[in-house]
């Protein structure tokens, strides 16, 4: 689901690129993954996937053309590194541990809140029961 959402967002961000160059689903996925590993040179730390800037669009177009003509991932990264330096290559996506941590944290906070509310109600009921003469 997350992958699908990512691809849809990527396609939306690609704009005209997506309309003019048609890739297979597998090629789209590959383009998306490559885009996660490249920094947009004119935006603060964004990957090219999430940027609409001129250079990000050009880079995304280049990736799609390169995939169609059969370039390997290494070829594509080498091209960008030779023009922009190592600074343009990003670690690809997040490490496994970090990916589930925010979700677990959210769940824990919800649980904690639930328990707290329940404890509060119980305490309130207990107090009332203590006060009531019957």
């Amino acid at each position, binding site marked *: 689901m997350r992958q699908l959402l990512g691809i849809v967002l990527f396609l939306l961000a690609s704009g005209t690129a997506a309309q003019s160059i048609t890739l297979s689903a597998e090629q789209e996925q590959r383009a998306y993954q490559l885009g996660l590993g490249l920094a947009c040179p*004119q935006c603060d730390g964004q990957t090219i996937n999430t940027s609409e800037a001129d250079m990000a669009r050009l880079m995304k177009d280049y990736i799609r053309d390169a995939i169609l003509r059969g370039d390997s991932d290494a070829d594509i990264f080498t091209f960008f590194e030779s023009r922009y330096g190592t600074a343009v290559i990003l*670690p690809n996506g997040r490490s496994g541990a970090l990916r589930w*941590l925010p979700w677990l*944290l959210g769940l824990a906070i919800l649980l904690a809140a639930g328990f*707290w509310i329940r404890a509060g109600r119980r305490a309130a009921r207990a107090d009332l029961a203590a006060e009531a003469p019957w």
Partner: protein
Amino acid sequence: MMRRLLLGLPFALAVGLITALALLLFKPQQTPRAAVDFVVTASPLIGQPLPDWEFAALDAGPALRSGDLPALARGASPTAAPEARFLLLNFWASWCQPCVSEHPLLVSLGNAGLPLVGVAFKDAEADPQTFLARLGNPFLTVLTDPEGQGALQFGISGVPETYVIDGNGIIREHLRGELTLETIEARLLPLLQGAQGE
């Protein structure tokens, strides 16, 4: 007492997870990559030959291949050492404010005898011409890169961007962002001064 401990457990878990997350995020090897300022990062193109690309001319003149630029750099002094002859390749656009700001500097450099070639980046046909008519045209020839694909070959990170090319076709400097007197003094002047000895 036991109940209090049990109630506190989800909280302790939440706090523990927040701490863990914070520590993980700020651990050096897992710090999200800091925003890279491409204006200051070293360009891999310095010292390298010009990327090969053919640019169309703005005024329906003859197209120019990158390989034609060194000859323009050697220009009026064909007998001088090629590494001592320089040309400025300037990527700009009429819609770009810093390009307007730096343009007078380019005009001054042109007047001082430095060969310049301009490339209009992702610009409509008429607008660059209007720009040059208003602000002056220091360029030997004005090229155009309407889709920006040439710019990508040159590792452009935005406009304006300027390359100092020598008579051997080697990129001697790659200046990102607006040209200023400071940039010229720090990065162009040493090249010109070095060349003076030849």
